[in-house]
């Protein structure tokens, strides 16, 4: 079989089980693709030896008739996941040289299910960014380019390396994490599928923390079916994460009927933003027509506090980050600054953190420190948490009125050029998450999938938002939209 790296999870799994291909062959195809894709800067730590061992073990398992969901399937892991004995830096200088002594629950679950790890994937530093440009490794590059234009584009962020790697067929799928849109925005920018599950569905244990009340891991894949397969392998109760939900994980793949007849799909009027590009509006209208043609009932809904989601997020997320990132103090792991004669422990903290954190991380840690400081805690932090309650209630009201899922654009634009936002106000970059951040604040599952292309030939994605814990229904609805949209375009290989 040619071009094995271009397979998705489902097709590769079926070929493995039939004996048409081995995991070693699949893995070698991906390793060759990675070797030839240095220009994308997607893989930042390579684990070819580990992959070879895991592939051999997977082939033996398959031969013995024991082939769990991910058996023999080569994937990439975002650098935010701690992987035992393998560099895990969260894209930050401050974790340079850190070699975890343990395995994150999600990566362990994937390995238990037989997955093969090809390496670690580029990302914005501590998952803070929407373009992968805050990474200590330098930015990943989107395999897509505008028609007739060589300009390098962002793969989105923070899971930009994961998105670029999946879109460029360097791996069959990848893990991502999503705090404000970090799975769904890069998926939309690269023509791939990404789902952020309900808060609590995947264990956060061993995932470097950014904003603990918002962070969730999820799969980034080539198809909705692949997302269903991989989410099933990643998810599950974990006693090591006190916010992990003790709920059975359904068979997401078996639930993919694609039958949405009679389903109520909500269209929130507040997501029609001023100045939204016409092509995004058209993408949304086309998606609505596809759902209607597939038998769904389209209803207009209101989520009145949408406008306040980003400001609330930019209080809550930095506040939690300032607390979480306090652990990077040059004592227990990672970077420690070289000290001058007479420097005490305070100077060590201050110099270590100034050297170890990039500008965006420093900015957010300090904003978080400010909104939590005496005198401002109520005015900023508590107010933001109250607004968060109202944002969640907006969704609860819509679901109580019978809406099954909500259809929105995934991003306000197609992928933008690397460097284009360098001189912009940080707030302009934050607007990338305007359609996705509400979902994190409300703890809901959301999936982005490609349904069209921009006038410049770039992929565009829509987002479906589901009821809590109903990822199975959400994936089935997404499967129907995927079939109707029939998006099959791939980037032309230039790298």
């Amino acid at each position, binding site marked *: 079989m040619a071009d094995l790296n271009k397979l998705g999870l489902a097709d590769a799994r079926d070929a493995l089980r039939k004996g048409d291909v081995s995991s070693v062959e699949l893995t070698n195809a991906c390793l060759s693709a990675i070797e030839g894709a240095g220009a994308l800067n997607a893989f930042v730590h390579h684990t070819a030896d580990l992959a070879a061992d895991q592939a051999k073990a997977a082939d033996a398992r398959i031969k013995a008739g024991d082939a769990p969901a991910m058996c023999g399937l080569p994937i990439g892991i975002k650098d935010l996941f701690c992987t035992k004995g393998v560099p895990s830096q969260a894209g930050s200088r401050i974790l340079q040289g850190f070699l975890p*002594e343990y395995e994150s629950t999600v990566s362990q679950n994937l390995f238990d299910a037989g997955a093969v790890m090809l390496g670690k994937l580029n990302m914005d530093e501590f998952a803070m960014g929407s373009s992968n440009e805050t990474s200590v490794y330098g930015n990943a590059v989107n395999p897509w380019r505008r028609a007739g234009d060589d300009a390098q584009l962002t793969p989105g962020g923070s899971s930009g390396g994961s998105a670029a790697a999946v879109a460029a067929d360097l791996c069959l799928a990848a893990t991502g994490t999503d705090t404000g849109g970090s799975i769904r925005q890069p998926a939309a920018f690269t023509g791939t599928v990404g789902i952020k599950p309900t808060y609590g569905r995947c264990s956060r244990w061993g995932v470097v923390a950014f904003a603990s009340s918002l962070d969730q891991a999820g799969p980034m894949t080539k198809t909705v079916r692949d997302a269903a397969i991989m989410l099933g392998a990643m998810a599950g109760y974990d006693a090591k994460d006190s916010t992990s939900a003790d709920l059975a994980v359904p068979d997401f793949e078996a639930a993919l009927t694609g039958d949405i007849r009679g389903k109520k799909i909500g269209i929130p009027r507040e997501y029609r933003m001023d100045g939204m590009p016409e092509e995004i509006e058209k993408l949304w209208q086309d998606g609505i027509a596809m759902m209607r043609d597939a038998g769904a009932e389209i209803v207009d809904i209101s989520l009145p506090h949408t406008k*306040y989601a980003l400001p609330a997020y930019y209080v809550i997320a930095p506040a939690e980050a300032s607390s979480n990132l306090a652990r990077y103090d040059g004592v*227990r792991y990672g970077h420690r600054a070289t000290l001058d004669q007479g420097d*005490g422990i305070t100077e060590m903290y201050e110099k270590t953190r100034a050297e170890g954190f990039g500008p965006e991380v420093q900015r957010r840690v300090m904003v978080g420190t400010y909104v939590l400081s005496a005198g401002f805690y109520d005015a900023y932090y508590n107010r933001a948490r109250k*607004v968060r309650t109202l944002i969640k209630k907006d969704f609860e009201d819509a679901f109580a009125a019978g809406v099954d899922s909500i259809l929105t654009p995934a991003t306000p634009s197609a992928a933008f050029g690397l460097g284009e936002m360098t001189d912009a106000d940080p707030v302009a970059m934050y607007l990338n998450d305007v359609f996705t951040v509400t979902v994190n604040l*409300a703890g809901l599952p959301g999936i982005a999938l490609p349904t069209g292309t921009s006038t410049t030939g770039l992929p565009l994605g829509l987002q479906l938002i589901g009821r809590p814990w109903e990822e199975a229904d959400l994936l089935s609805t997404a499967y129907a939209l995927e079939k109707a949209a029939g998006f099959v375009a791939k980037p032309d290989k230039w790298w």
Partner: protein
Amino acid sequence: MSIDETTAARVAKLARIKVEPDALPALAQEFNNILGFIEQLNEVDVEGVEPMTSVTPQVLKRRDDVVRDGGQQAKILANAPDAREGFFAVPKVVE
């Protein structure tokens, strides 16, 4: 609400991040832009609304009060920039 250089310096100190004095004006300006954006929250009527503590209603599980883990000194110290005699080593803390 406007942040001046003194406040910016105080926040940097609280966050234990060294900021050179010549970088403070730009930092204060960035804070002001971000806080200006956040100020929109003042438009929302939050009277009587509970601040969210947990996004999914759940009761934290209790577990037996027993030692489940431990005896991993070498692993815990393995990544330390400076570890000596079984301890993390840091610069002088008290005079």
